[in-house]
């Protein structure tokens, strides 16, 4: 196996045995980036020198007898997570050239755990999108088929990991932005419980929904990374104080006896590709074979996830993105007065999807429409949460497809925003309910494109979710496939 194909835990074991150094591993990954980056375009910034320096430090620490959870592992970071001294743009012209004076908490935690940061990955501008085509700079290509999208908004992170350009990556999930690209690129992608990981330094899109999450090659790696990322942060008042469990220990032995798996009848609807439905149904049979009890549940408000999300998230975005005014950082337009400066900076600096959502959110919050749109959406959000509360009285986890379709072609959905929004149909309601959910590979379609199985759990029950995912992964080999580039 080539070095760039290793999982984090494989690389860590080899380094701990003294068979591999972080410098060797990092050099191999940087060479891989050089070789395949022209095809995937996963990165906005590669920090090769910094990475090699961090790798040398990791090797020195290990030689001195010190061990850390991620010591020497090369990891990529989505470009909406602040990195001290490294340009952070959210793939937007309005932040071009912005160099944060601080690290996001999750980045700080990765560094403290010994990770080697490779650079910043491409994304849909301000994380608004499902294909990474909304990047203001260039689209990213899916390593499984370069004519297709990697999903989004964490499409650069997903493509980087799938293509061997990083051992793992951080993404962020507001309505599916970690899980959907994980599904389309054949990876494990985790959306943690809202508040499990700190949002400090994550450039805000929708504050009641945003969560950082890992993208990895297998479930063990996801558990390993989550243990480092999760936990209370005094700089984010919305983080949970509950101690972080040992997720790796919770993976278990692959036996699911006594565990109840819920299958919502609303998840197999029109619009789900036949290959996706077949793969997910077959995965559910595998879970039953492993001892799980399969229970049909109902989430009657599933269909409202899309309209609720596309009112609440843009409303929050319209407020959060008010800070981009051309004064303190980023792009500034030429103007004679302060007001003209605001209007022109924002009009020229934001891309089409970002402006569309700012407009939508501004409208939903404006006088006369607030009750009909924003407040109504918040009320239906309560109904979506109640659906999950009720279902989790009967079951331990809920499973279904992550995405109704496999990777679609570049340009196929860019003309119709609603068509693009439909790509997130199965990932929105978990985000609105604040519960954890992950995607992991459960098959391939006729064209050889990966299919993802989504597993959701109650608030703070990531350990249960990982246990089910790990049992399934141990019983299958989907996660061992790598794209040829």
């Amino acid at each position: 196996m080539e070095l760039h194909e290793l999982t984090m835990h494989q690389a860590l074991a080899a380094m701990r045995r003294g068979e591999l150094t972080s410098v060797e591993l990092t050099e191999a990954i940087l060479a891989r980036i050089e070789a395949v980056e022209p095809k995937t375009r996963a990165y906005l910034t590669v920090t090769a020198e910094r990475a090699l320096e961090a790798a040398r430090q990791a090797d020195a620490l290990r030689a001195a007898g010190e061990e850390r959870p991620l010591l020497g592992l090369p990891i990529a970071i989505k470009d909406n997570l602040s990195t001290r001294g490294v340009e952070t743009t959210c793939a937007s012209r309005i932040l071009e050239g912005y160099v944060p004076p601080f690290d996001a908490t999750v980045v700080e935690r990765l560094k403290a755990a010994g990770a080697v940061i490779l650079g910043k990955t491409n994304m849909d501008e301000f994380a608004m999108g499902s294909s990474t085509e909304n990047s203001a700079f260039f689209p990213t290509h899916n390593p499984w088929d370069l004519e297709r999208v990697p999903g989004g908004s964490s499409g650069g992170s997903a493509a980087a990991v799938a293509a061997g350009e990083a051992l793992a990556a951080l993404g962020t999930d507001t309505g599916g932005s970690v899980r959907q690209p994980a599904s389309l690129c054949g990876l494990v992608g985790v959306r943690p419980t809202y508040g499990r990981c700190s949002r400090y330094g994550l450039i805000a899109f929708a504050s009641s929904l945003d969560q950082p999450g890992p993208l990895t090659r297998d479930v063990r790696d996801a558990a390993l990374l989550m243990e480092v990322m999760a936990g209370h942060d005094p700089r984010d008042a919305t983080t949970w104080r509950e101690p972080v469990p040992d997720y790796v220990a919770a993976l278990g032995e692959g036996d699911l006896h006594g565990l109840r798996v819920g299958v919502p009848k609303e998840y197999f609807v029109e619009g789900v590709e036949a290959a996706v439905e077949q793969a997910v149904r077959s995965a559910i049979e595998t879970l039953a074979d492993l001892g799980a009890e399969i229970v049909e549940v109902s989430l009657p408000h599933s269909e409202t996830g899309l309209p609720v999300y596309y009112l609440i998230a843009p409303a929050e975005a319209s407020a959060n993105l008010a800070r981009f005014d051309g004064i303190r950082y980023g792009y500034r337009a030429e103007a004679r007065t302060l007001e003209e400066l605001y209007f022109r900076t924002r009009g020229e600096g934001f891309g089409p999807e970002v402006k569309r959502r700012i407009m939508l959110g501004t409208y939903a919050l404006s006088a006369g429409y607030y009750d009909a749109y924003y407040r109504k959406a918040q009320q239906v959000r309560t109904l979506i949460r109640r659906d999950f509360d009720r279902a989790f009285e009967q079951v331990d986890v809920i499973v279904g497809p992550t995405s109704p379709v496999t990777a679609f072609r570049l340009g196929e959905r860019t003309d119709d925003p609603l068509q693009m929004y439909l790509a997130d149909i199965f990932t929105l309601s978990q985000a609105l309910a604040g519960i954890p959910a992950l995607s992991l590979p459960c098959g391939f379609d006729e064209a050889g494109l990966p299919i993802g199985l989504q597993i959701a759990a109650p608030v703070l029950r990531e350990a249960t979710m990982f246990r089910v995912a790990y049992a399934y992964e141990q019983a299958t080999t989907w996660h061992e496939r790598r794209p040829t580039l």
Partner: protein
Amino acid sequence: MALTKDEVRHIAALAHLALSDEEIALYQEQLSAILDYAARLQAIDTSDVPPTATVLPLVSVLREDVPTEPLPRDEALANAPDAEANCFFVPPVLPPEKA
């Protein structure tokens, strides 16, 4: 529901966005379609349903008020498109008077 061009211009003004006529026309069409889609929520009975603003069981989070090092001024200004005399520099609030 169909938005008029004037409504779209009004929203753009509220959001402080300078938009071209082409953008106004495009957003008129696209926002109308999205709002049409969102209108299906009106059919759901939400009387007596409280709104969810946050999924967390938090009320008020307090901590000790401990002074820490602030961001140094030069770092705070380092990303500014225009800074002078340790201040962010902006154009005048009122337009220059015509001669």
